[in-house]
Every structure is written in C-alpha cells, then in structure tokens.
C-alpha cells in the first residue's frame, strides 16, 4: 500500500514537472532559433564583405606578385578547418584500447599441433585451449606536425603465463610529399598481400588462414622504410616497395648487413555500378634467413638461405546501392607461392641442402544479412613439393594428402565498437583431424581508426 501511494505521489510529481519542462524547452528552442537567425543574418553580411575584399585581393595579387600562400584567411576569421579541433578542444594524441579474448576447444592437444611439411614460425599456431585473454591492443596516434604523422601499437600479450609488452607498430609517415608519394619509416605490418597489414581485431575469422600461418608466421612485421606511389589516374593504381631489416619471420638474422629483406607490391581496384567494388593486387617478398627458427621448441629447425614469396590477392565487395549498413557481402581470395633455397639444420644436428616450392590459398565469404549479424565461410589449403629423401621422417616432409580445413563463423556487433563471434573449424591440416570451436570477443574503447577497404 505504501509503495503504491509513494508511486502515485511520484507519478503526480512527474505530471506537474513534465509540461513545465516541455514549456521551458520550447521557449529555449525558440530563443535559440531567434538567436540563430540574428547570427545568420550577421554572418551573411560579414561573408559578403569578406567575399568582396577577397575577390579584390585575389585579383590584385594576381596582377602583382604570386600570392602568399602561407597565411590562411580562415584561421584569421576564426573558422578552423582542422578536424578534431572544431570548437571543442580534443585530446592529443588519439588513444584507443582493444580488448580480445576467447574460449577455445579442441579434440586434440593444441600444444602438439604440427602441419607436416610446414614447420610453423613467428606467431603462427593454434590459440590456447580453454579460456584465455587475447591481445590487448593499445593504439596511440597523432599528427606530428603539418608534414608527419605517427602511429604506435603496443599490444600487451600473455605468453606462457608471462605478461609481455610488445612494440607491434611504431612508425612515422609523411603527409606532404609531392607527386603522390608517401614514405613510412619505423616498424610496420608489411604492405604485402591483403590480410598482412590488418590488425587482428579487423580479421573476419578468429585466426589467420593456414597460408599466412605457414608462410608469414601469421603476419610479416619488420623494421624498415616503405615507399608508396599512387598514380594520378581515374583508375586506382598503387605501386610500392619496402626495404626491411629482415629480422622477423620469414626472414631472420638481419642479413645483408641489416637490409635483409625487400618487398614490392602493385594494387588496383574500382567500382562496378553503385553496388560492387573490387581490389586486386600482386606482391613479392624476398628475404635473407640466417638461422631462422621454425617448428616446435623441442624440435626446432634452423634455416639459412633465401626465401621468396609471391602473393596474389582479390577482394570483391557487394552492398545494395553501396549502402553497407543494411546488407553486404565480402568475397576474398589469396594465393601464396613460396620458394626457399638454402640449408636446414635439423634437431639431430644434420645439415641438409633444401630447395622446395610450396603453395597455399584460401577463399572466404562473409555475408551480413541484417544489421549487426554476419556469417562467414572459409576454406584454406596448402601444398608442398617433396623436398627429397633426406628429409623423410622430418617435419619438413609433407603428408600424403594436402593439408586443408574449413571454418564457419557467425558474429554479432552491437555497435562498431563491440563484437562477439562463434567459430567452428574442421581442421584436416594437422597430423590428426581436429574439430575446433569456440567464442571470441572484441571490444574497443577510445579512438578507433578508420578501416581500410
């Protein structure tokens, strides 16, 4: 009874307050409107004056000397064209944090996961079994000045129970080079392939395709200098290359006096009507490897020699009228071809000459039928030459059947900043068939950079 009467009392109070509120809001709006009108009239008059003087000035300037481009009349007038400032101060630099974690299940022990013929290196390999924390990605970025911009990605990762802070990316890029050029220096994801420079939070599946795991150790990151040139054409055409230190898988040991790897890439793309767009590219990586480690810790293999990798990529995106928010489809395929020539030192101490070709490819489709929900399907496969009798019974000897697997994915995003994902993978790549499945979360707070195509 008491609750009821209190409720009624509150309700009455609200009845009294609400109309008053509405009335005062309406008055406020009216006042705002009147003020807007007055301001607007004043600004139009002011503008007209400025236009006249500006026109006179520009005509005069043309007749005399070249105009002094350094003074920006907009700044003087108090209109800042710089985004991020507006009328409100914003924090410099931009900081964002991305949280990832998962619960992952296997039929077999993931600690003993090997793909015969493809000893894994770098960061490649299965996720930990059971509940685990993924990478905590901290992104910090800002323009240095009018000519340079800077980006830092520092993931915090848990490796074998130890918390490790890594420098994943730390680069400076030019903003004002002429002729469509830009230069990036520092540590970065190499610009080869389609997936190589995507952060893990932007992947469409929990893990990288087998080919990226086998040939790039998940992703090729290195220290170096990257030059890109964009052609001044109606058709998108980007050419670029990198010179890298060569200290990260698939290179190792910073060969050639610390200039151990280089890359080249060409990429083009366009639209077909309003609903379709595509991008295709070719890239090449050549790297020195000096005592490069791959395979498990107990069975480590050391490779010294030269590694060449060619990647062909194709991405096709569809959205009705190009309106991505409602419905869209993304088709993606890459083909990777690798040739390695050199010497392998096996765990038993033998040194064997090695010259072998390996290929890998994947195709995947991700479909968003309604806002928030996406469904994905991926098939990936590897194949390898037989490196020779000497390698029989070593982890460099491929299995009789090509390794392959398929994955199914469904994810739900409440907003651009949150995502929950369910994935099932049927893996026929390891020594035994393995059904893997689990849940993943990705959450982002703070500044979040725009995603590339």
């Amino acid at each position, binding site marked *: 009874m008491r609750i009821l009467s209190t409720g009624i009392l509150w309700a009455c109070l609200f009845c009294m307050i609400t109309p008053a509120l509405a009335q005062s809001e309406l008055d406020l*709006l009216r006042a705002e*409107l009147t003020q*807007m009108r007055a*301001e607007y009239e004043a600004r*139009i008059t002011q*503008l007209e004056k*400025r*236009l006249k003087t*500006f*026109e006179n000035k*520009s*005509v005069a*300037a043309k007749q005399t000397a070249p*105009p002094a481009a350094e003074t920006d*009349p907009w700044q003087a007038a108090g*209109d*800042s*064209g710089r*985004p991020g400032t*507006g*009328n*409100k101060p914003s924090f410099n630099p931009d900081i964002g944090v991305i949280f990832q974690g998962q619960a992952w299940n296997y039929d077999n022990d993931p600690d003993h996961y090997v793909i015969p013929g493809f000893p894994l290196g770098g960061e490649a390999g299965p996720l930990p079994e059971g509940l685990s924390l993924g990478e905590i990605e901290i992104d910090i970025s800002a323009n240095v000045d*009018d000519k340079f911009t800077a980006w830092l990605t520092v993931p915090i990762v848990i490796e074998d129970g130890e918390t490790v802070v890594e420098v994943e990316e730390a680069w400076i*890029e030019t*903003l*004002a080079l002429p002729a*469509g*050029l*830009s230069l990036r220096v520092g540590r970065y994801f190499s610009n080869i392939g389609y997936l190589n420079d995507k952060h893990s939070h932007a992947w469409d599946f929990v893990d990288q395709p087998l080919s990226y795991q086998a040939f790039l150790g998940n992703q090729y990151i290195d220290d170096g200098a990257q030059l890109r*040139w*964009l*052609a*001044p*054409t*109606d*058709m*998108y*055409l980007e050419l670029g290359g990198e010179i890298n230190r060569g200290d990260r898988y698939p290179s190792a040991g910073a060969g050639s006096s610390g200039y151990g790897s280089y890359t080249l890439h060409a990429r083009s*793309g*366009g639209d077909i009507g*309003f609903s379709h767009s*595509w*991008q295709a590219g070719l890239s090449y990586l050549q790297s020195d490897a000096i005592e490069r480690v791959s395979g498990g810790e107990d069975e480590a293999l050391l490779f010294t020699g030269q590694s060449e990798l060619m990647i062909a990529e194709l991405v096709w*995106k569809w959205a009705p*009228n*190009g*309106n*991505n*928010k*409602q419905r869209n489809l993304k088709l993606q395929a890459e083909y990777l071809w690798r040739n390695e020539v050199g010497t392998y030192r096996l765990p038993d101490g033998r040194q064997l000459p090695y010259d072998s070709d390996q290929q890998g490819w994947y195709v995947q489709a991700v479909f968003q039928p309604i*806002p*928030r929900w996406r469904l994905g399907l991926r098939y990936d496969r590897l194949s390898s030459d037989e490196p020779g009798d000497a390698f029989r019974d070593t982890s460099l000897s491929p299995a009789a059947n090509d390794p392959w697997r398929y994955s199914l994915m469904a994810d739900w995003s409440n*907003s*651009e*900043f949150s995502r929950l994902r369910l994935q099932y993978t049927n893996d026929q790549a390891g020594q035994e068939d393995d059904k893997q499945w689990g849940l993943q979360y990705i959450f982002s*707070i703070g500044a979040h950079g*725009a*995603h*590339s*195509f």
Partner: protein
Amino acid sequence: MKNIILVTALLFFPLLSKADLRVFACEPEWAALADELGTDRVKTSSATNALQDPHYIQARPSLIAKVRRADLVICSGAQLEIGWLPMLLSKANNPKVMPGRPGFLETALLVNRLDIASNTDRSQGDVHPQGNPHIQTNPHNILLVAGIMTERMIQLDADNAATYQQGFDSFRKRWSAAIINWQERASVLRGRKVIAHHKSWIYLEAWLGLEEVATLEPVPGVPPSAGHLGNLIQNYAHNGVVDYIIRAPFQSKKPSMWLSERTGIPAVMLPLTVGGSDKASDLFSLFDDILDRLLSAEQQ
C-alpha cells in the same frame, strides 16, 4: 601501335579535361552546391549517394583515386565520415587536401551546430562530440556554406574568380527567394511532433519549428530494437501526440512502417540529400520535395 599507345595514354591520363577545379564532396549536397557555384569550371564527384548511409561506406579504391587528384575536398565533417575519410586521406597522398589546408573544407564547422555533446560516453550511442553533422537540412546553413565555399574556390582557382562570384550571387538571389517561399509554405507545420529514425533531421526541425519527441534508434547508431519500438507504441499509440514518423531513404523502412501500422501515425520518407527521391534532383527541388512530402502527409 601508335594508336594503342594513344588509347592507353588517354585511358590513364585524362589530365587535359576542361574543368579547372576538381571537387571531391563526401555527400551529394556539397557536390550539388559546388556545381551551382562553379558551373562548368568545376568537376565534382561525391563519395556517397543519397541511398547510402554516409556514416558507413567503405574506403573504396575508386574513392582513393578521386581524392588523389582533387583540388578541394568538401565534407560535412564533425566526425560524420570518421569511419572512412581519414583512410581515404591517408592513402591518397595528396597534401593539397589535407585537413588544415585550403583544399579541405568541413562544412559543419562553419555553422551553428546543435546537439554538441557534453558527455561522450558511448553508452549514449555513437554521439558526435562536435555536434550533429547533418546540417544540410536547414537551407540557411546551405547559404552560409555557399559563401565559404565560394571563397575557397576563388582562393584555389583565382583565374575563375569572376565565375565563382557570379555563381554565388546568382545562387544567393534564387536561394533567398526560395527560403522565403519554403517558410511560407511550411508555416502550418510549426509545432508538429515527429519521431525520427536517426537524429538526421534536427536542423530541419529547428528551422521549421518541428519537435522531435523520440527516435527509432534506442541510442544513435544502434539499430531499432523490438523492445524500444514496444516502448514507443506504449507512449505514442493513438493519443494523437505525434504527427509523423520520418526516415531517410537509406534507413530500413521496416521499423517505421511497423510503428506506423500499430500507432496510426503516418510514416514519411524524406530525402536527406540531393538524389534521395525522384524529385530531389538538385538543392532547390530537395527542399521542395521535403515540404511536399510533409504537407501531403499532413492532409491525410
């Protein structure tokens, strides 16, 4: 052989086109305005069309190629394009149109913005801390932007200063007359109450004296949910308080039709920009059509 070289050269290097100023607009309204002011002296293109939600397009290769060659990039700004414009600018390697340069113009920063959020907590949805960026639905804003845009065009392409000045004078005359006409026609709409799909219309509402009582999205950027729509029914069914449910052409019509059927409030699709309806072929017919659609729903 000579022909092949010539054809290839023409395909890749159509640099000798007649236009003197390449304008890349993020939204169709700014492309249309640039055409009004620059007539045949400008070559305009728009990153989005009226059937696309400008928050959510992809940073497509074709757009990067256009920004690469642009002299002037005009966008609504205030973070409307934050999901793709920074990527276009960073990939396009064109210093002329970098933020802070004369070749980059953010129109929302030129007008009196509404809804400047004092709280940028994302539990309130994807709020724009610099205010609501959909400024084009108030024609007064368009005229303000026209003035600044003309100044920029003159600054970047002084050879055609007279053309741009004439373009502005002519536009201003016709636009001011049109505003008076629209305001007269819309006077009966003053005080009408609306439910909007997204907060896309607050400048139109401020201009015409409409009052927005709710949105179909529970918070900005989050799609309408069954629970939220259920609440709207409870609050607004058959009590005659709300006059329209409005949405833009790229927003799903399902939520507004669903609510309309259950509440009897007419659902109205309004073009948010040029090209949003068959009639809205330029800036003038855009506002003609917005008013036509509101007034004809009024008569029902």
